[in-house]
């Protein structure tokens, strides 16, 4: 067991200085280390969201996934089984914990009205209803069913979608489906630039 400073003091006062002079030995053969913070954490295998090496990551969360626990990230580390990164991570991947726990995250829907100088809060329902109404109005106002030559083109040039680099394949597919169904042709992605 570890002798604490208090034990040491107690011992000194009780045992007296004389004993101490001759060097009593309270140091144990072992020294206490910090406990392994991930010892009982839950592991979730994920993929780093940054570059296209696609490193495997392990996200460690406290709690054993019992019902009464909201998992809290305590550490992110490379997945040693992953053939590409074999446990390694770059300085961005290694700091993913700060991305997950970032206090700069956006947490509620907001709107900036025409002429506005600041963000206003808006409920999800209101936001989605307004957006849907705007999409419909813009589409109905400018949908091109036939081009100048009378060819059916069913094209919508007035709405654009620009997609990000960290969207999953499945999300991208849903977007392509939905956007092409609307007739969107201004459909672009980080992949272009």
């Amino acid at each position, binding site marked *: 067991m570890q002798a604490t400073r208090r034990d040491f003091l107690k011992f000194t006062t009780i045992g007296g200085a004389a004993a101490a002079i001759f060097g009593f030995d309270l140091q144990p053969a072992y020294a206490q280390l910090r406990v392994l913070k991930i010892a009982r954490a839950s592991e*979730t295998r994920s*993929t780093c*969201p940054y*570059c*296209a*090496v*696609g490193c495997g990551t392990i*996200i460690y969360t406290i709690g054993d996934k019992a019902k009464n626990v909201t998992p809290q990230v305590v550490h992110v580390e*490379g997945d040693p089984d*992953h*053939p*590409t*990164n074999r446990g*390694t991570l770059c*300085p*961005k991947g290694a*700091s*993913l914990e*700060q*991305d997950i726990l970032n206090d700069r*995250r956006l*947490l*509620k829907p*907001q709107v*900036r009205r025409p002429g506005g*100088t600041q963000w206003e809060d*808006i409920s*999800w329902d209101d936001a989605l209803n307004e957006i*849907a109404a*705007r999409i*419909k109005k813009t*589409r*109905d106002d400018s*949908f091109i069913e036939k081009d100048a*030559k009378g060819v059916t083109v*069913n094209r919508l*040039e*007035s*709405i*654009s*979608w*620009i*997609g990000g*680099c960290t969207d*999953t*394949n499945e*999300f*991208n*597919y*849903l*977007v392509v489906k939905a956007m*092409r*169904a609307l007739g*969107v*042709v*201004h459909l672009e*992605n*980080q992949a*272009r*630039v």
Partner: protein
Amino acid sequence: MTNGWVDMKNTDMMLIMGGNPAENHPCGFKWAIEAKRTRSAKMISVDPRFTRTSSVADMFCQIRAGTDIAFLGGLINYAIENNRIAKEYLVNYTNAAFVIKSDFKLPADTDGVFSGFDETKFSYDKTTWNYDAAGGPGHNAAVAGTPPGLPGSVDYDLTLQNPNCVFQLLKKHYSRYTPEIIERITGIPKEQFLKAAELYTSIRKDGDMKKAGTIIYAVGWTHHSFGTQIIRTAAMLQLLLGNVGRAGGGVNALRGHSNIQGATDMAGLFDTLPGYLKVPTPGDASFDAWMKRATPTASKPAPWDSWNYYGNTSKFTVSLMKAFYGDAATKQNDWAFDYLPKVDRDYSWTNLWNDMYNGTVKGMLAFGMNGVAIGPDSNKNIDALKKAEWLVVGEIYQDETSEFWKSPRVIAQGDMKQIQTTVYRLPCAGFAEKDGSFTNSARWLLWKNAAVPTPGDCRLDQAIVAQIFLKVRDLYKKEGGKFPDPILNLTWAYTTPQSPALSEVLKELNGKALADLEDPATKVQIKAGQQLPGFAWLKDDGTTACGNWIYSGSFTEAGNQTARRDPSDPSNMGVHPGWGWSWPANRRVLYNRASCDVEGKPWDPSRKQIWWNEGSGKWVGNDVPDFKVDSKPKDHMGPFIMNPEGVGRIFAPLAAFADGPFPEFYEPIESPIDNLFHAGRTHNPVVTKFKDADDKFGTVKEGFNVVCTTFRLTEHYHYWTKNNPMNVQLVPEPFIEMAAEMADELGIRGGEHVKISSARGDYIAKAMVTKRIKSMMIDGKKTYQIGIPFHWGYRGIAEDEGKTARTLVNALSHTAVDPNAHTPEFKGFLVKVEKV
């Protein structure tokens, strides 16, 4: 990537150019280092700056940004002149022996352009860019009313002596790329260039085929008005050296984001549909007409065979339409052909912003995409958003796009209250809160799991998009409107339509049987409703549905293949066939048939990928053969099965590229000198430029005399980690890298503020004065280059603390567009440098 990250460990020689993998892909770069460590492989780094990649390379050449084609063309010239080419490979696996139409002319003979250039339209009539039909002209007569196609049977000369054969044209074309002119264009001294050329081509010394060399690049090549042609030059060099399809070889694009490979595959782009299917145009009168245009026919020397896999295009397309529109897509209604928008022109990135700028685009949805910061000419993009009616941003942090109306530019102009754009900013989920698959640069699909719930009021991205779409659909159901059919008939039969489970979506992508199917050869049966084992099962009769043919095989009856976690690698060649799933068909190295000689024996017996097994009459190996498994070597089927020729295209015929069948060097749109090959044709003649008030171009005469390139730092990720305190601590502020010599001349010391201005905007940051950039002699004139990392904007930790000038580097860059990939040129433009 033709190969993969781990495969790099098999290489003997690396040419890293237009990329900086040590900084931008460190964990993938380990395999390049592994090759150095285990094979004593050599690495050449060619870059405008001495980067952290250069620091571990065996040789470094400082190149002027945007002159890569000159350098690579010089390598081709050197390889041919010194006979360091893979002769057998070249003759049998490329179109080197194909004979080109005699009226085809090279730029050297046609005033800097290829034959067929139309000076008024700035485009090419590509009729002459074609193979000669076997049996002489006349056998290649175009069918009246259809655009000219490739001849079914090509004239060829296996001795490569015919002056009109591809090889001779190649030799002639690049014979102009001498070390002397390369020095004047690129700034790389002749001796240094020769040293690099000697080193890279040394893998084919004396015709030895054992060694393999790889070319590794990234957006340093794509961000140019001739980016596609740079990459093509590299591909041609690799074909010439016989490096494609080989372990440790290939042309390897290092993609910069976790899933832009997937986004490209999934066609989040205007000009494709999932699986690289061509979009229909107004010229396609019907589904069949569209398929006829989109489906190539084999074109090859008569004794050879060509699988021409894109001959199956209609199967992929019908299955896609079935996945999109289900029962609403029938043979009777042309597979709902009318539901697809017909694309009549270029709607790519820069056009999109230009169209918004000019009032066509009224609304924008930007999800995880910081549009004003990421593309070139940020000021124009901000001005465009001012004119939009509405903008919906889905993000996890405050980004420059959603706050464009608060940007320093708007504040400086004082017109915030005049901006009528309504902006919705929806809080999305971070990566750890979502599952789904990413496709990495090596085409591996890897499933990830959600670790934590979304914080606050954040919602999953797929839920937000689904909810928006379903609300729009409800409005059309209730109110009707313009052509509601595709909206109402789109399949959305997910268990939770409001938030589709991504595993269900992946199943849809993989595809399923809509009727009972049977393979006539093997009698294997698949019941209706079952997942398909792969794209070979796709049908064009409406009995299969598949959201993306190249992803077919990713979620089979055996389950989610992208979630497989078997790390073993029996061949020890970095194949890892049981880890995740790779498109196509779980192949890890593309074109791997080319790793064997004509007889089907591996070029290097110590690195066997696949080989012909005479006993079983099949191609077998450590990887999945990228080939028809039962095609005998003596049938001479080409290894490049996706090309109608079956072979690699050293000469790219007809409409393959907008700006030439061979890459020709042109200067960047803003360059310090005229084109030394042909002064009258300084720039890529078919490049797209805009002519709006915000589209300005600078010249040396106006004082823009420094070549500027932008780059990424390993410590930061795009405009994202500026919100991460750890990464901000690593590199707290923006800076500008410049040569010590230049700083001395301008009286600038490290850490002092410097103003960079282009014709479009300016940027202020501290100077990083370094020996890693040197002055260059460009056509005899001392020229400087600077580099600017682009990670900062007006929202971030340092930004909010007032530590940066809060402007975007891309305010400097311009919007000239590559005519093939439509990627804008935002590297290698001209700026002025002043001390502040």
